């Protein structure tokens, strides 16, 4: 028994040390990235932040800094992608919201200068903007709580004999039911049940949308930088995407950034 406890102790110590070492190295990379950003070396900062993201860190502070570095480097599509990712990790982040608005505005300016005119989508759909402020966990807890409350009220309504109490329960039940349905729909929206693919952003201006996953396949349409897309599947160096306006086709992996 003593041996077992000793072993467990060693294991815990080892895990704690490994975690601390990882955190230390991650912190170093993060500080190097911030340093590069502050000295105007945006590409170097992006590379460092990218190391953290690729190592599995999914922290809104890092994705926000990555988005900011991309924005400073003029990669507005990438900036929008990482700000969106920040909002997924920390819904309602004002800095990220401002970042998206700024990057979208600059994209529009640049496009207008190049093409004479530009149209950019700045506001998401109504229900999407309603859901945007809540995290998936918040909506899941709300759904569960409202579900439990609704049925508890129904049970009480069935068993309570006092008329005044029954009246109160009768008013509360439909309200709770309605709120529960709204929360459930919001959760489904957040989970992407109404989408065909994973959310993504186009990161290259005038990116080709082809009929097939082949560079020689005919071009079907073009996608604008910063445009939202749904990523349906991947085939080699191409991804099958769906864009607004019923546009669908294959784009280079490098042209599309998954949120």
């Amino acid at each position: 028994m003593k041996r077992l406890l000793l072993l467990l102790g060693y294991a815990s110590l080892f895990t704690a040390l490994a975690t601390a070492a990882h955190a230390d190295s991650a912190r170093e990379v993060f500080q190097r990235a911030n340093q590069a950003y502050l000295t105007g070396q945006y590409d170097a900062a992006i590379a460092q932040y990218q190391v953290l993201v690729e190592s599995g860190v999914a922290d809104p502070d890092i994705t926000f800094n990555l988005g900011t570095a991309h924005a400073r480097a003029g990669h507005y599509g990438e900036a929008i992608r990482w700000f969106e990712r920040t909002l997924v990790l920390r819904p309602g982040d004002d800095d990220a919201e401002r970042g998206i608005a700024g990057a979208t505005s600059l994209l529009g300016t640049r496009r207008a200068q190049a093409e004479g005119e530009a149209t950019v989508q700045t506001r998401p759909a109504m229900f999407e903007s309603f859901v945007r402020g809540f995290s998936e966990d918040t909506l899941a807890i709300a759904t569960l709580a409202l579900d439990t409350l609704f049925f508890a009220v129904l049970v009480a309504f069935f068993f309570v004999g006092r008329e005044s109490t029954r009246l109160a329960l009768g008013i509360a039940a439909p309200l709770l039911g309605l709120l529960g349905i709204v929360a459930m729909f919001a959760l489904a929206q957040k989970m992407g049940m109404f989408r065909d693919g994973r959310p993504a952003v186009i990161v290259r201006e005038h990116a080709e949308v082809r009929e097939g996953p082949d560079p020689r396949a005919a071009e079907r349409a073009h996608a604008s930088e910063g445009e939202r897309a749904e990523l349906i599947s991947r085939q080699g160096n191409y991804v099958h995407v769906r864009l607004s306006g019923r546009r669908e086709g294959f784009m280079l992996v490098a042209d599309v950034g998954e949120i």
Partner: protein
Amino acid sequence: MKRFAWMVAASVALTLSAAPPRASAQQADVVMSIDRSEAGPGEPLLLEIRINATNGRVESVNPPDLSRFTILGQEDLRPMQFSFSFGGGGATVAQSSVVRRYRLVAKALGRIELGPARVVVGGRTFRSNPLSVTIRDPSQAQQAPTDVAAPPTANPPGYAPPTGTLDGAHFDRTAFLRTVVDKTTAHVGEQVTATLYLYVHGSLGSSPEVSREATTDGFWVHDLTPRDDRDLVTEQTAGGIPFRVYLLKRMALFPLRAGTLTIGAMHLTAQTAMGFDTWGVAQPEAFDREGVAVSITVQDLPSAGRPSGDVYVGNYTIETRLDRPQAATGDAVTLTCVVRGSGNMRELRIELPTIPGLNILAPQVNDEVSAPSDLVGGSRTFEWLVVPQRAGTYTIPAMGFSVFDPQSDSYARVAAPALTLVAAGNPIATSSDAADRRPQPATPAAERVTFGPLHATSEFLHARAPLSRARWFGLALFAPPVIWFILVLMRLLQRRNRANEILNAPKRAVRGAKKRLAKADSLAQSGDARSFYTEVARAMKEVLEARLLEPVGGLTHAQLRQFLVSRGMQDELVVRIIEELEGGDFARFSSTGSSPEEMTRARERVEALLQRIDKFTPTPKDAP
């Protein structure tokens, strides 16, 4: 009377003998046919001799020499035989049909000539047409496919399939699919025209349902199927059998890569139409058929003499123009470039070089694709807005591209002459160079938009699955409705049990009363009058309570009387109940007691009363 009958019979006989039927001369059509003109060794053949005879009986049918065949079977059919006469002494016509069928198997390979069959009708001999049949070696049959031919009377439209060797199809006597391509070898980007036909012996009864389209992976496809239905059907003979040929699909295919590309086999289901032939009514027949995949060998463009840069396959001309040769600085001038010709227009790209002093915006591209004579082409128009930034004379260089002509197997350069634009006026400021559309470092405009501030700390959180994706979440979501359902079910069952209890209360009370009366019997035998009457009174009250669903134990006799009357009990029954209860009380408290006989009588009365109480249905308590 007898004499009159004889006279009538004689006159009828005279009339008939005076006007004999004027029978015409015997005639007969004898047609000999065989179900196919070619067969493999051992394949059964169906030889048919059909005789349509007029005014004569078919006396004998002599087939041609069948010594080179083994006769597997023979049958005679008489599908039609009737006669009719024209009235008023007209001619009597008798018609009959006889069909003789032989099932044969050839004994040897080679061509077998069959002479005419001879048929004797009414003493006259008639001959059929001769026939020939070829028995082929299976290996040779594979090398020599069935021939197809257009009927001499048919005027084949432009969409008719080619005649000659039947390629791109698996021949079938009822129906088959055929894929025809105009060439089996092509260069990348060169048009290949493919047509899919459905051959049907007879005609289609319904539109075919395509269960699998012909795949065209590796091609850019332009549909050429004619819109006019009249062009879609023609006639051809294949393997000696007449077919209607339906054009299902026609398409121009432009190979996108070198190698062997395949036009996949189409699969469809359809049904032949009900029709009439010389044998009678042909029933509709459903069928499903699979076509033949056709491979196209696609070659890269020849490397010898290939110019650098993009090369487009086809025949093109190019034309460029400016909407005006002079403009003020800041005014937009439209530069138009129109490319016309045949080929895969949608591939065409024309890039303009950067010209210092000119802001050239991204072009608008418009296509007009057409396919005259099934050759895909048309025009692609590029329109650029060109804005001079400062005064000067600008030369827009010659626009053009390299082409490869597959007909002559040679390369050429197609180009339009250079254009000159003269701009006058004051220079205008610009914030960006439109020609460079790559992402650029932050512009002054970008500096005005604030990003950040940078987050100096991070918790380095790792990705974790959200709560809603956890397995328990779904269970937790379903638990409240399930618990609610179970509770409601239990509650309902409980209520049902209670209701059953109330409904069964009178029965239970009657059973209890009977027990009490039985006990009272034993008390009567033992002479215990006090206990006897107590039991009897209890039995009555319990049955009353169960019936009325109200306690009556605490009521005086007067109150009980009033209560029973108020619940609708007959006065007579009420009086008897009260009397019995009063009698019991009297006997219980009497010093002399009661005799056993008296108690037995009391018990019988009470038993009768209990039966009546049990049948009594009280009115509701609040009823008037």
